């Protein structure tokens, strides 16, 4: 298991990286942490002609607070995200999601941007981004554009980032008011790809009525699935058992999971409903505190 030949470039600035990307076009591939890319390169399932290493772009390794917003640089390692007090305080769902990713040793190297661009359908960071309603900055030599999570994920392992573009930062809004969140997943072992994952963030008013809810499921579609219909249903409601059941039946209706070795489509459908209920409930309880 040795990778095929490739040319390697290690730009020192973002501009240099973008120029290299533009020059290499479809043959170029960015390597950040490499924790998903290098395994598939070693297996020769991925054989890029040219690797552009962004690990020296220290400008892209940051966690910043701005009014109503947390900004995270694409190269920020997952372990830094996991242990950041700033993130725990303002966008805690992300802190809760990151420990589910792989293992300490892969989180030491893996980056937040790398996980987003790799866009594994069960991955935790994409799910969290979608749940919190975040957006990303995508740069090319021409421009920097902003894309909302809803428009970012295209299909399996595919995002809106074009071959000549680089994801540079992630913006996550800080929700106002009484906010609760929950992230749960079922996997075969600690650190495995989730069979199904569910994340929920919601806010409630002083009457404990849900003012805003975002329920997102992973592992049931090719991309993280925002359960819009359920979120609309929850608007203005207090969470009750019958409401939870309604959400579960919406989930069952809108998802079209696949079968694989570890979980059948039926089982995934069941888990999606259970986890949707569990996360919703936990988030609601937390918000009410």
């Amino acid at each position, binding site marked *: *298991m*040795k*990778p*095929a*030949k490739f040319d390697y470039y290690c730009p020192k600035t973002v501009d240099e990286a973008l120029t290299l990307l533009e020059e290499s076009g479809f043959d170029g591939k960015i390597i950040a942490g490499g924790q998903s890319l290098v*395994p598939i390169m070693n*297996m*020769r399932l991925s054989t890029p002609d040219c690797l552009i290493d962004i690990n020296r772009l220290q400008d892209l390794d940051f966690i910043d607070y701005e009014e109503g917003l947390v900004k995270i640089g694409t190269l920020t390692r997952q372990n830094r995200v996991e242990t950041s007090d700033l993130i725990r305080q303002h966008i805690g769902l992300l802190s809760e999601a990151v420990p589910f990713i792989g293992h300490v040793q892969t989180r030491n190297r893996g980056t937040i941007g790398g996980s987003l661009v790799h866009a594994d359908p069960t991955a935790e960071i994409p799910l969290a981004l979608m749940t919190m309603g975040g957006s990303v900055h995508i740069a090319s030599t021409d421009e920097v554009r902003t894309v909302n999570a809803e428009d970012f994920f295209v299909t399996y392992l595919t995002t809106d980032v074009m071959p000549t573009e680089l994801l540079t930062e992630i913006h996550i809004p800080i929700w106002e008011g009484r906010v609760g969140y929950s992230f749960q997943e*079922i996997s*075969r*072992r*600690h*650190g*495995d*790809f989730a*069979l199904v994952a569910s994340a929920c963030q919601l806010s409630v008013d002083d009457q404990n009525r849900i003012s805003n809810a975002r329920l997102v499921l992973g592992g049931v579609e090719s991309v993280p699935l925002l359960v819009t219909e359920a979120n609309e249903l929850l608007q203005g409601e207090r969470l009750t058992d019958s409401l939870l059941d309604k959400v579960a039946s919406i989930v069952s209706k809108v998802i079209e999971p696949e079968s694989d*070795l*570890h*979980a*059948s489509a039926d*089982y995934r459908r*069941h*888990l999606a409903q*259970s986890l949707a209920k569990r996360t919703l409930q936990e988030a609601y309880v937390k918000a009410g505190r």
Partner: protein
Amino acid sequence: MEKVIGQAVTRVEDGRLLTGQGKYIDDIGTPANTAHIAILRSTYPHAKIISIDTSEALKLRGVKGIVTGKDILPYVQPFSVGVSAPVKYYPMAIDKVRYVGEPVAVVVAKNRYIAEDALEKIKVVYESLTPIVDIEKSLEEDAPLLHEHIGSNIANHRTFHYGKVDEAFEEADRIVKHKFHFPKYSATPVETYGMIAQYEESSNQYTIHANFHGPFVIQSVMAGALKIPSNRLRIIVPKDIGGSYGIKAGTYPYIVLCAVVSRMVGCPVKWIEDRQEHLSASSSGTDRVTYIEAAVKEDGKVLGLKMKLIDNVGAYIRAPEPACLYRTHANSTGAYDIPNLMIDAYAIMTNKLPTGLIRGYGGQELYFPLERIMQEIAHQLQLDPADVLRRNLIKKEQFPYQTASGGIYDSGDYEKGFELALDMGNYKEIEQKREDARQRGKLFGVGLACIVEPSGSNMGYITIALTPEERASSLPKSGCAEAATISMDPMGCVNVRISTTPSGQGHETVSAQIVSDVLGIPREQINVVAELDTSTSAWSIASGSYSSRFASLGSSAVFYAAHKVRKKLIKIAAYHLQADEDDLTIENGSIVSKKDPSIKYSMKRAAGSAHWNPLSLPDGMEPGIYETYYYTAKVAEPPDENDLVNSSVTYGFVADMVTVEVDPDTGEVQIIDYFTVHDAGKLLNPLIVDGQIYGGLVHGLGGAMYEELAYDEKGQFLTGSFMDYLCPTAPEIPNITIKHIETPSPLTPLGAKGLGEGNTMSAPAVIANAVNDALKPYGVMIDTLPLSPNRIWNLLNQAKEKKGANQV
């Protein structure tokens, strides 16, 4: 000096392994001009090879040669195998591929990177054939055939009748029966296969360095396949092997392949298997379908058993298969006194990876149906499963106990062990725990299992694959010989050479303990050499690291070899002191008179005499001190004409109690506690003993819960990485409590029995029993593994649907 046998002393191996100075196959250096191998493997489960075009690959810079199946034919013949079916198994596919991963071509290149570049350029045209992977379907009339010339997919079939089976079944109050399926899983040592092969034309000799750990009977199988005299195949096993658990016995087809490739390409070659290769194409445990029927009385007493065993040995039957069927033959009735037994045993071939040794070999396949049916007997008779086991356990006074199929259980106190396990787990209070769990919305279950752990295989057992008539026409096989050599150099320093090729079991440490006790030398001063060289080591066809044979056999060989040295030293001293040999003993580096301790002779001087002054030795004594002892147990006799065979030398005992909680919503199983009691006779080093037990148990837990080499119904292999082949990791390990009782074996000089495989055999059964108990309210029957949450959820769901349908 304090005796160290039986002490939990720390290991001599650890120093080098903790500092990066281990010497594994990939660390030992290579001859000049060594090239590296990459292997092109079949992507089809069953297909004809129409053509192989290597021209583009050969053009790459750094490629030294490419060898295909047809190319090797002048230099090899099929491996011999212990069944009468004429299966032609070569180390590489010749004209047909029969499993995904089968070698099709070998690239030799300057380094592995280039070799893999070349693999991509080889073009193979296949014509796909209908694959067969299902065990029972492979036996059907119109099943696709893997080996057309054999006429069926059956590699071996034997039927055995012991006692009065028909009468037992007539006498029974009830017949309890079920079909079980034990899946294919593996051992996946973290170090993969590795070897360096070199051919020397002038002597027509192959020299191989490989992490092969025996059985060394396979050395002659390899020499036979290479068509050379066996002393022209020199196999050298490095000091350190990075784990095996049996799987590395399966390196041998690759040893032959690399040997031939070295010869054909004309340079030494090195191959380090990668993980994908290991999972798809190394070796694996044997998947088995068992139909089991028990004839029982109302009180739970089992009068007789009928078992139909169908082993899937994969695409080719190869040595040591069909041994999975027969390794546990003598202990087919487990820990129970069941005198009547019928076994109908099949080994069949399908389009899957060929099988071989794996920790527990045959035991997990046997005990899963046996222990599940014992629980089912209790359920059907509405008895406490503990009582059913009690009723059937062999009693202390019955030892040595002869089993229906010819086993001679050397010693044990099974009831004591079992009661201890129940006490540890507080079995009496179990209903309270069930209620507590129910309050939390969980299903609580308890599982029990009692098993017999065989160790030290009788070389004769595998011949039971042949009929008594077939056996009569060839040399009978018996015994379980193991060798050790102990030498004392001119300065009185001791070297011990063992042939048990350890892969982490601490044989160097325990050998040093034994020699220390016998020769009265501090163990730190003893040098133990675990490297094995078939041209220079003392070894036997039974040598190697398998069947837990060190504690019963390897240690005995070391013990007796040390005694030979001791005796010689005492003889020399007696001669010089003009004392009576019987009056002399060894103490603190001296040979001392028991009657008068002032009369003594230093060991260093005795050794010095043997080397520096051989003319001073007693008449007829050889110079030097270099003693080899070959040990075998007398009880390992060939099978008799009634197919009675004592397939192992010593038989330990394991009693398990396991508690679990199941989440009825998700089907997730959590093991709460695993209590296990072992009786492996006298323990040589309790620290190492418990380490072996933890490891074996977690491997068994893996088989129960996570591990499976999965194929789809078309024969495509699905678990080619550690992301899909799931080994247990630290968070998956439950609380484990181990206790020992020590009933010494009367057969071995130290009273020790083998261990470390017991829980690999018992864990799948006991965990399944616990989960089945938890799901009892739903009336489900667990009859296959692993117990993935999806599988449990399916069972619960089906039960709910059935219930719903019944209510309508």
